[in-house]
Structures are given as C-alpha cells and as structure tokens.
C-alpha cells in the first residue's frame, strides 16, 4: 500500500498525492532544449497561445450568439457588435486570431520542412501536426458558417457539394451532411456544435499528442546537429551550463520563447485594433440568401492554395487534385527519401524544391483570390501542375541526395 506521511507543507501534501515534483521535472525543468535554435522555434508556443486566445474570445461570443437561421446574423452583427459591452473586441480578436493562426501554422510547417524536423524519430510530431492542421481547417470552416452571411451560406453550399464526389453524384451524402436539401437550420445547428465542442475537444487532444510526440526526440536545431541529450543534460546538471549544448525548458527557454510571444502579441493587437477588416469579408455582411450567389465565391486566404488546385480542372479531376493537396503533406516524412535532417541550404536540390514549393503555394494563393479569367487562370493552371510535379519529383531528388 502506498505510504503517506503527515504533510510538512501544501507542496508536500500535493507532491505525495500527485507527484508534482516528478511532473515538473519531466515536463519542464528537465525537458531539454538545444541552445542553437532561433525565433522560428517560438512559433509552436505562439500557436498554443493563439489557440488560448481563440478559446477565451470564443467563450464570450458564445454567450450572445444564436444558432438559428433567423437570428444568427443579427445576433452577431447587431447584438454582439453594437449592444454587448466590448462585444466588438471579442469578435475582432476571434476573427483576427482565426486568420493569423493560419499564417503562423504555415510558418511553423515551413520551418519544419526547411530544417528537416519531420525525420529521424520526429515523424509523429509531423503527423500530429498535420492532424492539427486538418482540425484547425475544419474549425475555421465551421466557424465561418456561424454569422450566416452570404459567404457563410455559399461557402457552405460549395464545400458540402464536394461530397457529392463528382461523377458519383452522391446527393444523398450531401443531404445527410446538411440535414436538408440546402444549408438550413439543421446545417447551422450541427456546424455550431462542431465548432464549439467537438472540434475544439479534438484540437486539445491533438495538441497533447503533438507535445507528447516532441518529448522523446526533443526539438531539432538550426544546424542539423545530433545533440546527445543524455550527455549534454548531465553537463548542465553538473553545473557546466556554459559548455552544455542544452538549456532547461523552464525557466530558461521559456523566457526566450515569451520574448518572441510578446512581440507577436503587439503585432496581433495592432491588427485587432487597427486592421481587423482584413479578417472580415465584406460580402459576409449581407445576410444569407439562397436565391442569390455572390459574384465571386472564394474561401478565406488560408484555403486559397488548395482551392486553386481544384479550379483549373473538370469536376472529377479537380476533386482528385483537391483531395491530393489535402493529404499529401502528411506523407512528407516518407516521400523525403534522404536521411539528412539538416537545413535545406545544405541539401542541394532539396533547397530548390523547398523554395519552389513555398513560392508555388504563394502563387496559388494569389491566383485563388482573383477571378478565374484570362492570364490568371493560365498562371493558376501552371502553378497547380507545378504543385503536383514537385511532389512527384520529391522522392527522386531526395533519393540521390548526398549524405551530409
């Protein structure tokens, strides 16, 4: 039987029952972080904080939002924006955070790609990260339905129509997802549930998995060096903190992390107070109308690249292209055949691949925003083909990469 002694302090009382010292050691004070990393390694913490901001602002929006097709639009655009004290603040914080979180996710992903942080035991970090990306996408889409404006309605229409699976004409499946022939009350209600409960729960679980996946391999570093965490941490604990290549996560590294977070938050609140409009589509300030399509239906900027991949093709090919774009990043650790987990700058052709992929996705994003006409549609078409060509080329160029 476990043996309990009379507690000498509150800390001791907790420690006997919950093992707080052990937890603190494993998760914080003896979780080792290499010294040679830069501000790009703070993106993960920024994401965690932004998720917290989304959660808090969301809770306040939830207190006045009405998930009803007749009331939703006014509950947001009138009640929350004009009546509720500081309601506008929660809405702008929530909208800006939802948009900025994707900017940071993309930076975080491309940091991982650049430094090869998805290989050599870090595959689960990458896969859990991609699951987070999918969950955040679903969260953003379901949230976009809630104000029940024109873009909510028509994005809901177009995206759920994807589930008719093109030539398969699975209308039954589409109607099942909507709970109606068109997006209506049942649709709004179930997307509301997904947005405020099921997907956030999944995200919290996935963040725990993502952090868990980091614990054993530890974070990578900017020199692609294989740090021996056993040896380096012993050095540190023995007092030789100067020569050790690692520092404690808490408080040492956290202090650096929070510095970057602080700068980010200044930028974030600058956007919230002075440039929130970039996160609010003007078309969505018209109430949903099933008998009138907006002239251009486009998703939020962070989905544009995958939407553009779909546009140049006929329905079926487009759907396959879209599905490919949605899942292909999951397979990165396995399509990259090279064992080098070093910065792209030292990986020959892969360096070109990296920048080509980044530029291509920016071009796809830009072309997704403009109307699909004339030279735009031609550029979009080639950018889409380039996207696929790059993924097909990846295993080959990495297979023949020199070992560094």
């Amino acid at each position: 039987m476990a043996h309990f002694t009379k507690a000498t302090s509150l800390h001791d009382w907790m420690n006997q029952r919950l093992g707080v010292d052990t937890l603190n050691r494993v998760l914080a004070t003896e979780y080792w972080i290499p010294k040679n990393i830069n501000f790009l390694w703070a993106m993960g913490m920024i994401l965690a904080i932004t998720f917290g901001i989304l959660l808090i602002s969301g809770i306040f929006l939830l207190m006045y939002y009405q998930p009803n097709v007749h009331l939703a639009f006014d509950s947001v655009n009138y009640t929350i924006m004009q009546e509720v004290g500081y309601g506008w603040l929660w809405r702008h914080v929530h909208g800006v955070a939802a948009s900025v979180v994707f900017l940071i996710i993309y930076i975080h992903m491309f940091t991982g790609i650049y430094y090869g942080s998805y290989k050599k035991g870090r595959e689960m970090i990458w896969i859990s990260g991609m699951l987070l990306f999918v969950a955040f996408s679903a969260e953003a889409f379901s949230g976009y339905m809630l104000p029940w404006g024109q873009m909510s309605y028509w994005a809901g229409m177009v995206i759920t129509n994807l589930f008719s699976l093109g030539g398969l004409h699975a209308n039954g499946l589409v109607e099942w997802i909507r709970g109606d022939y068109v997006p209506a009350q049942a649709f709004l209600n179930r997307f509301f549930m997904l947005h405020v409960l099921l997907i956030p729960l999944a995200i919290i679980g996935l963040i725990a998995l993502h952090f868990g996946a980091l614990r054993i391999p530890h974070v990578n570093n900017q020199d692609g060096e294989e740090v021996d965490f056993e040896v380096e941490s012993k050095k540190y604990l023995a007092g030789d903190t100067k020569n050790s290549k690692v520092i404690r996560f808490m408080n040492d590294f956290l202090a650096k992390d929070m510095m970057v977070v602080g700068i980010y938050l200044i930028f974030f609140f600058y956007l919230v107070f002075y440039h929130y409009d970039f996160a609010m589509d003007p078309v969505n300030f018209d109430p949903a109308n099933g008998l009138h399509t907006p002239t251009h239906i486009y998703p939020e900027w962070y989905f544009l690249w995958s939407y553009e991949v779909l546009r140049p093709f006929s329905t079926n090919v487009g759907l396959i292209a879209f599905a490919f774009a949605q899942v292909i990043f999951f397979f990165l650790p396995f399509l990259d055949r090279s064992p080098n987990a070093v910065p792209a700058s030292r990986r020959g052709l892969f360096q070109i691949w990296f920048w080509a992929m980044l530029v291509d996705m920016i071009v796809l994003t830009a072309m997704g925003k403009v109307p699909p006409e004339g030279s735009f549609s031609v550029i979009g078409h080639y950018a889409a083909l380039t996207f696929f060509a790059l993924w097909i080329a990846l295993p080959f160029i990495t297979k023949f990469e020199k070992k560094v």
Partner: protein
Amino acid sequence: MKNSSRRGFMGKAFGAVAGVGAVASLYAMKRSWDPLPSVKAAGFTTLDMSEYKENELVVEKWRGKPIFVLKQSKEMLDTEDKNMSEITGKTTSAMDKKRLLKIGGEYYMVCVGLCTHLGCIPGYRPDKKDFLCACHGGMYDDAGMVTKSPPPRGFDIPPFKIDGMKLVLGESSPEYEKMLADGVTLKV
C-alpha cells in the same frame, strides 16, 4: 492456463457485446443526422405557368433551391440548333427538345438553378440568351444545356407533374420518369 483461457473468453464476450453496441450507436448517430421528416414533407411547390413571359428568367424556390423558369420564344427554339456543347461535341438541339416542358402549347425550361459543377447560381444574359456561372466560368444555353465546362452536365430538372396550366414540383409524373430514363437529367 485455465484462468487465462477464461479471461480470453471473457475478453471475446465483451468484445462481441461492445461490437454490437458500437454498430447500433453508429446507426443511431447516422440516423440523427438524416434530414427530418418535416424537412422532407415541405418539399412541394406549385407554379402557375400562364404568368411567365418569353425570354424573361424567373427564379422560383423549391426545397430551398432556386428554380429557373424560362419561357421559350419562337426565336429561341430555332436558334438553339446552332449551339455546340463543349462536353458532348454535338449540337444541343437534340438534347434541348427533350429538356423542355410543353405546357399549354408553349415550351418552358424548368430547372434547378444551381450550377452542376459546385452549386453556384449562374446568371442569365437575355441578350446572349445564355447562362454564365461566375464561380468557375461554366456556361449553359437557354435550354439549360451545358456549353462550357467545368460543369459536367446541363441543369438538373426537378421532379414535376403537369396539371393543366399548373406545374407541381416535387411530385413525379410519367413525363419526368421518361426524362430520367432518357438520361436528360439526374434524379434530384
């Protein structure tokens, strides 16, 4: 040995019970997401066909979806023959005659006004007598036949029943069944 085989049996027995329970709950969850009976029952619309004017698109509503009604003029019936479909490579006239509804001696196009690509509402251009979808540039002629991709097919036609000058949407009829059999439209 005896113990572990008993445990194995208990494990399997529990697995069987849990499996049945899991399938049953999945079925219940699936059914909870089905459209409600009230949603399904509200699916009928009656139109008075004598009120429409030639070459003037009217948008009606059926099951929350826009319905395009376009009364054909003599000229429209004739010029249709010149249109080529990008999808089939044939003139659209053969398809057109089958797509139109003949009511009281007049021809009408009655279709679900959603692009068959991804469901935007195309706009009608009375001067050009065609439909243009702003979302991805799909086009249709004045009988609702697709002339430019990405849409894979012409506008879908809702189930209809002709009753004198009245048209009931949502109810099938031999004329509609024939359209389905001829592959003029998919079931909506």
